[in-house]
């Protein structure tokens, strides 16, 4: 028996570094498994975050529809959870069989954290089962609070699980500086490897991105239900659910770039060459594509709000402004997508007539781009504010002054953004980089200040009429689909950026990729892979949601969606 074990060990030790996967190759196989697993994981980590928030709103405001919404979110979670685990297993087996030496290297360092991961996965699973199946049983009094605590616990387990998995991939990007190619992996302390330079920025970035992603997928689910609805009540419920999902997605999206800046800065601080590869090297064109995708998100998100205002009495007074908002978004998107410093051959530079385009080059610099994106964020916030205010007539005595202060805040924020954007052209790069902080702070201050005033203005507000939930044209629902597809594709693109900047290294400057697929592919090939992954994910999501629908009827609220005075959202 012992000889058999030793023989097995000997066989493992003599394994080749790589094995080839039939037809599509090892890299494509692992790429698909990792990406689809990540998409499901993002969904099952993002949804519980706002399921507990929705449940809390239901508890505090005593609004049953929020409680039912949270339950329906969780039901989606339940069916997606097993798909996440299956794809996780597929990824693990692919790594074990296609990249055996690399996986052995990682497991030599992270073995204990992998055991912990599995243990927490069990805890998370059973907490989820308790949370969902105990919903009706623990619905009243203290039991409800205990149930809500289970939701919190579910998020705690999920977040720790994500943090552990993040440590493995961030180690590949930014191993501690004292780790060299010759370092025996068994001598590297686990915590030393976990707490690497990019671990926490990735944790925060993914936490926020999961909320964005979960919101977008839930909104797409609701939009499908809306389009398939057979009654007005059902349509009203899913209209409202789509609104909530989209609101959560867009709100979290506004914060996401700040987490992205932090991650980018840490990458530069860890290794400049990696940062330069990311922003100015062979990946520079990726950011132009990213700008295009985010422009689509802004435009589709705003379009959904503008169309949604058609079902809100009183919103017609804001309609004349939408064309101007659209103009700002379109111009902003064009500026943001303007290429500037690209990796180029001497022939290409000569064809361009210099290192930059003689006219467009001026728009491609960070001063212009930061200005554009900050104005786009302000514009989106203004759209949301108009949506929020559409059917309200404030009654507080200082209503007029409050609105004027809000307008002044917008003007000041836009002026600060423009001032530093223009001034950025006349100062050194190091000073210019600092200006982006002032621009961001001005926008954030405006968002916070205006929201606080708006909440106070809304106290006791008189309704101009109920929101006609369900009276949305179908085209608005297709906008939600575009948002979900674009969010998912963007996630795949950013995953390629994060992973691709390691180039031909499994572990940056420690473990070289010597496989036949070591070269990092160009964006065209990456885009094809991303589209395949998104297609697989969306097809499976549609399937598991359909399965979920077979098992249980959706839970929509009849009475509150159609009757009663409801001011606000």
């Amino acid at each position, binding site marked *: 028996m012992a000889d058999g074990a*030793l*023989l097995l*060990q*000997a066989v493992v*030790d*003599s394994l080749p570094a*790589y094995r080839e996967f039939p037809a599509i190759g090892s890299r494509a196989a692992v790429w698909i498994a990792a990406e689809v697993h990540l998409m499901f994981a993002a969904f099952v980590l993002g949804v519980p975050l706002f399921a507990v928030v929705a449940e809390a709103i239901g508890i505090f405001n005593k609004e049953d529809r929020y409680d039912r919404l949270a339950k329906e979110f969780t039901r989606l979670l339940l069916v997606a959870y097993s798909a996440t685990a299956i794809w996780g297993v597929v990824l693990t087996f692919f790594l074990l069989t296609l990249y055996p*030496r*690399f996986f052995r*290297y990682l497991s030599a360092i992270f073995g204990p954290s992998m055991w912990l991961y599995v243990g927490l996965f069990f805890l998370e699973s059973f907490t989820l089962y308790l949370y969902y199946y105990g919903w009706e049983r623990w619905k009243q009094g203290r039991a409800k609070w205990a149930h809500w605590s289970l939701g919190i616990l579910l998020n705690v387990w999920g977040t720790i699980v994500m943090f552990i998995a993040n440590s493995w991939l961030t180690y590949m990007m930014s191993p501690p500086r004292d780790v*060299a*190619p*010759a370092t*025996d992996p068994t001598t590297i302390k686990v915590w030393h490897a976990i707490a690497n330079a990019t671990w926490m920025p990735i944790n925060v970035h993914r936490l926020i991105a999961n909320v964005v992603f979960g919101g977008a997928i839930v909104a797409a689910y609701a939009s499908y239900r809306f*389009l*398939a609805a057979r009654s007005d009540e059902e349509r009203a419920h899913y209209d409202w659910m789509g609104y909530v999902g989209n609101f959560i997605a867009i709100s979290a999206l506004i914060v996401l770039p700040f987490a992205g800046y932090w991650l980018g800065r840490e990458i530069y601080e860890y290794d*400049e*060459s990696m*940062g*330069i*590869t990311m922003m*100015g*090297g*062979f990946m520079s064109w990726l950011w*132009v*594509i990213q700008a295009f*995708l985010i422009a689509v998100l802004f435009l589709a998100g705003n379009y959904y709000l503008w169309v949604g205002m058609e079902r809100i009495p009183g919103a017609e007074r804001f309609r004349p402004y939408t064309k101007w908002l659209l103009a700002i978004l379109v111009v902003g998107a064009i500026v943001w997508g303007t290429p500037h*410093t690209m*990796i*180029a051959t*001497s022939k290409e*530079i000569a064809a361009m007539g*210099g*290192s930059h385009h003689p006219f467009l080059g001026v728009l491609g610099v960070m001063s212009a781009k930061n200005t554009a994106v900050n104005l786009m964020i302000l514009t989106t916030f203004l759209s949301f504010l108009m949506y929020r205010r559409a059917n309200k007539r404030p009654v507080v005595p200082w209503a007029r002054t409050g609105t004027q202060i809000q307008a002044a805040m917008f003007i000041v924020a836009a002026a600060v953004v423009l001032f530093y954007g223009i001034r950025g052209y006349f100062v050194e*790069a*190091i000073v210019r980089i600092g200006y982006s902080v002032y621009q961001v702070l001005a926008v954030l201050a405006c968002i916070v200040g205006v929201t606080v005033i708006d909440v106070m203005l809304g106290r006791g507000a008189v309704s101009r009429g109920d929101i006609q939930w369900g009276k949305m044209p179908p085209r608005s629902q*297709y906008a939600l*689909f575009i948002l979900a597809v*674009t969010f998912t*594709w963007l996630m795949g693109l950013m995953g390629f950026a994060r992973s*691709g900047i390691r*180039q*031909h290294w*499994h572990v940056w*400057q420690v*473990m*070289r*990729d*010597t*496989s036949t697929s070591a*070269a*990092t592919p*160009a*964006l*065209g090939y990456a*885009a*094809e892979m*991303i*589209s395949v992954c998104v*297609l697989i994910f969306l097809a499976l999501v549609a399937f598991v949601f359909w399965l979920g629908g077979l098992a249980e009827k959706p839970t929509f609220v009849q009475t509150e969606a159609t009757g009663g005075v409801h001011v606000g959202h």
Partner: protein
Amino acid sequence: MWATNLRIVALVLGTLGLYTLIANEIPQVQSEVPQTLALGADVTPEQLVAAGERVFTGAGGCTACHGLGTRAPNLLTDEKGTGLIGERCGKREPGKSCKQYLYESLDNPNASVVPGYEPIMPAVTRQLPPAQVWAVIAFLESQGGSVDVTASDIPAQTPGLTPGASPGSAGGGALAGGSTDPMTLFRVGGCVGCHKLGAEGGAVGPDLSRIGARQTASQIRVSILDPDARITPGFENFKGIMPKTFGDQLTAAQLEALVRFLAARR
């Protein structure tokens, strides 16, 4: 309902198709793996310059910053009236030749940052093998100056050695990044999985703790390169398990270091 389903499918496919199309329409740049440069003792300046240009515009990634006029000094065109890099490199630091200055710029770029630029350049010597570094220097010297890099500047290098090769590398690079530490080779090479050496190791193959007392250095060398040539009595059932690839994986220096180390275990 089928019409709605079809519309949704068409919308999703259309959106994915559009994004994929746009990504394929922009310039396609693939990040290639740096190749080991084989430069013999009789390499000519022209060969060095040609090789350096390929590294400069390719695997070296130099054009990501140099030549754009914003992030780093122009090297191939005039830099603020000071001429091309080959013209100005010998005047940048008193007492340093062009060659010395350029090597310092690649080895320790922050030692002398050109005024007006940020210290953002990474140490290129950490990323490229010496032959490529010296080829780039020759190429830069050729930009308005004369090339004085020769084969003697390039440190002797074992053929096939790729700096930074990892424990997991297979082919194309030496084990353990070229390390000649015998214990590192013993562990990274996987010997420890089967052979016991002191307190560590498995028991699939013979115990090597006192191998020097049983075999000569020559016999040990043969056992590493051709493991099945002679099977130690008692291990006949394990014939064929030990890889026959160490002759390809180890450099000559590594093999000799390992043989000497084992022969001394008495």
